[in-house]
């Protein structure tokens, strides 16, 4: 039997001893796209950080287990976790542009993150990066590779951060509001590129967003969070069109939908 890509069992997460996420259960299959929705403060980012082992000292998983391809990430050592980050699990977050190193060029940083995990030549990394840049509407990709982050706009750096995660073709990609700060036209390109990653390389994606449109477009399943609890979880079609929960319906009704005819 195939191991699920990600499995969370009875997960409880606390900050300063105060529970923030309660008895959380979910299972993602290989290549699955999961949408996570909920109001701000409901614990979406906390959940993703826990799976990536990035809660730091402020927070802790106090109950339950988190498995990535059968490995309990709560049990494995930091070194091994670091090796997994990148090729096995990648992450895009809302301000990933600001996480770039300010004193090295984009090209150097991309190469460095790749050679940690793969035997690969600089030219090959540049080539891959330029292809991805063009696809998400960052033309003049040669110049971008030679640029320092401060020479690019916030939206451009955000897309560099997205490429940084995508270029590794991770098996599991966490995307925490990856496009909230981008223009709608750019957002659409980024979302299509994430879909292509799944279709070509079988990347499973857990995407946190407050854009229900994005969720219905790309997600196979949806998890709805409210105050740290998973209030609804199921196939996207069922949750969006036929929700069983009042909170989910409230969330969906609050979103204006465009009428094209």
């Amino acid at each position, binding site marked *: 039997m195939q191991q699920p890509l990600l499995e969370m069992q009875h997960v409880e997460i606390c900050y300063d001893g105060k529970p923030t996420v309660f008895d959380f259960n979910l299972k993602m299959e290989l290549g699955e796209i999961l949408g996570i929705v909920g109001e701000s403060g409901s614990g979406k980012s906390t959940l993703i950080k826990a799976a990536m082992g990035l809660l730091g000292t402020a927070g802790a998983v106090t109950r339950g287990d988190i498995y990535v391809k059968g490995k309990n990430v709560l049990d494995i050592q930091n070194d091994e976790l670091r090796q997994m980050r990148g090729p096995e699990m990648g992450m895009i977050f809302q301000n990933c542009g600001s996480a770039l190193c300010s004193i090295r060029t984009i090209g150097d940083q991309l190469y460095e993150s790749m050679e940690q995990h793969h035997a690969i030549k600089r030219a090959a990394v540049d080539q891959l990066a330029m292809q991805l840049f063009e696809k998400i509407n960052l033309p003049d990709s040669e110049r971008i590779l030679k640029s320092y982050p401060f020479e690019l706009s916030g939206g451009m750096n955000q897309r560099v951060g997205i490429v940084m995660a995508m270029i590794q073709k991770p098996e599991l990609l966490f995307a925490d509001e990856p496009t909230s700060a981008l223009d*709608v036209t750019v*957002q659409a390109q980024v979302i299509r590129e994430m879909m292509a990653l799944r279709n070509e390389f079988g990347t499973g994606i857990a995407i946190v967003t407050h854009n229900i449109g994005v969720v219905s477009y790309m997600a196979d399943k949806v998890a709805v969070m409210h105050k740290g609890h998973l209030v609804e979880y199921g196939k996207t079609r069922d949750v969006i069109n036929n929700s069983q929960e009042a909170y989910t319906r409230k*969330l969906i*009704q609050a979103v204006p939908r*465009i009428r*094209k005819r």
Partner: protein
Amino acid sequence: MAVDGISFQINKGECLGLVGESGCGKSTTAKMITRLEAADEGGIFLNGKEITQAGNKELRAIYRDIQMIFQMPVDSFNPRIRLGESIMESMINQGMKRHRAKARAQECLAVCGLPKEFADRYPHQVSGGECQRASIARAIANQPSLLICDEATSALDVTIQAQILKLIRQFQNEMGMTCLLICHDLALVQEVCDRVLVMSNGRIVEEGTPDEIIMNPREEYTKRLIDSVL
């Protein structure tokens, strides 16, 4: 040049949408109307009166009539002043007595769904959605004839966005307020606006009712904007 030779009018009581990619000049347009930015050429008229070169004294009267709400509510409040005082400030500047201004501030907070205790809080002591509601309270306290919302809800949760839009519509109905809604969410524009302008590269490229524009876009740029809505 951020904005290049644009012409449009907003009719009394109307809600006009202004859409376009970031950097196309929407905020600059809003800032010119409120005179936070100077126009190099052309004229701007409020209620038929030219305000393009209005002096300080005139501007005070104009600022009572035009109010603006920004995307980042927290940045638009002085962090060291309680929300209630910030709301009262412009009323007092307009010559209102302190106790009257205070009562009016509490009234406006209540209309925006905030209990009067919020008047005593500092900006960092409230959530983003509450802070945005306080900035709407501040804007309507002056009973403006024109309210400009510059991406006022894009950083907020969808449920809070819905509440705020409901408030704005309510003020339009009850006080005949005119509204300029700058936003990049076409669905939202379709829901609340009577008319919409599409801006690209500092120019207005298309104008019509939201349904006309969305169902029959003429410009390539507008089509791209519509196709991007997932």
